[in-house]
């Protein structure tokens, strides 16, 4: 088994293609804290961290709690000349509930609340079994792929900057009181930043693949794990 070469140019076993420039790299197990970069374009291929799965799960839960809080607590309040107006996040989205702008209500709600919550949920769904060393749930790969696809569309941090701009515009007109939902969104920025820096997609994909296959006859932590991968893993039927 160890006489077998660690990669196979016919089936792609043991190889990684840089998603950004297609350069082929050998798959190797890495120690936590190491960073693998593409030799051609410098794209980060893998950046595993010790205990990253647990941290990512915790951050995903934090983000869910903050978002749910943000939905129910007041967001901003203005008052001037005795006229006051408090708005929640729903009011912000419903500002577009008028004629042709109606689709924008759904879009705004999705971008600031729906997608961030959905992404946290997908991430927890994918990572909880992996962190416990159990086989992943059904469709875990699809769930994680969707979570990554939706990433650019969840715009909580952009919304916070938008709020700041709006506040400066309103400041001359009325006095503004910031509600708990606003601070929840500010905290969300930092949660997202942390989650982003702990996230190593390659490690998650490898973990899904390795724990999903019961054919493993090797120690998952063994150093040349990829070299001993059974050839049928690269077989189209095996992973489907």
């Amino acid at each position, binding site marked *: 088994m160890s006489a077998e070469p660690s990669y196979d*140019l016919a089936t792609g076993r043991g190889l990684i*293609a840089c998603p950004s420039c297609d350069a082929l*790299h*050998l798959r190797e197990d890495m120690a936590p804290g190491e960073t693998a970069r593409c030799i051609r374009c410098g794209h980060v291929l893998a950046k595993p961290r010790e205990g990253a799965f647990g941290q990512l799960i915790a951050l995903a839960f934090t983000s869910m709690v903050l978002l749910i809080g943000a939905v129910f607590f007041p967001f901003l309040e203005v008052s001037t*000349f005795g006229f006051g107006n408090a708005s929640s996040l729903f009011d912000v989205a419903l500002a577009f509930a008028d004629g042709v702008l109606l689709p924008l209500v759904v879009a705004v709600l999705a971008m600031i609340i729906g997608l961030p919550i959905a992404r946290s949920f997908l991430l927890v769904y994918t990572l909880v079994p992996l962190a416990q060393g159990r086989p992943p749930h059904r469709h875990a790969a699809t769930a994680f792929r969707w979570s990554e696809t939706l990433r650019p569309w969840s715009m909580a941090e952009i919304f916070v900057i*938008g709020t700041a701009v709006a506040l400066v515009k*309103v400041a001359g007109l009325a006095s503004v009181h910031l509600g708990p939902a606003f601070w929840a969104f500010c905290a969300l920025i930092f949660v997202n930043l942390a989650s982003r820096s702990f996230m190593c997609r390659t490690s998650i*994909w490898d973990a899904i693949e390795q724990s999903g296959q019961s054919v493993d006859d090797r120690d998952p932590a063994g150093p040349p794990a990829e070299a001993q991968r059974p050839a049928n893993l690269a077989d189209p039927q095996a992973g489907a």
Partner: protein
Amino acid sequence: MSAQTEPQSPVLTAHRAGLIGCRSCGRVWPQDEAHCHRCGAELVPPDRRGLQAVWAWLIAGLIAYIPANVFPMMSTQTFAGLAGNSEATILGGVIELIHYGSWDIAVIVFVASIVVPVGKFIAIAWLAVVAGRPANVDQAHTRLKVYEVVEFIGRWSMIDVFVVAILSALVQLGFVASIKPGPAAVSFALSVAFTMLSAQSFDARLIWRGLPLRSRSSAGSATTGPNDE
């Protein structure tokens, strides 16, 4: 991952090796596979034909950007219309902000809703034109940098839509002032979304396909039907 399958200076790509790399998870498969068996994503060869999607979304984004500038972004009514009703387009809003003396916000709005979208249109069009054309390594790195900037910055244009939403929800002060969103908000949001899709459909691997070595026609002929070399 530091080890490389071919130590010579031309980098061996999955495409040239007769394989296909998954852009979603990096796993490598034989070239005739249609879907990645690890993550389920569609496997697409690095092919200039994929640029059609880039152009299509880009043109859609450009078309949506026209009404976004012509129609008002929001209308403000102060003192029940006695102190005036004003309808501000994107550019009008910037000019108004300068009048108020809030230069910093004016600059943010100007950059976010005019400089960035226009720059994005130009950058994506340029990338789609030069993708796959012969280039040296330095040029390829420049193109990659441009692509990364465009991809990173694209979603930030949505800031304008959020500002309009927040202002309209917040400034409902009856007699004193009220703000209503205008039709430009929706077309601006569409324009941003279309350009994001355009940038996402651009295949960054094409940037590296034109690097100097003439073997690319032999490697390319396996999948990409017409090849001009």
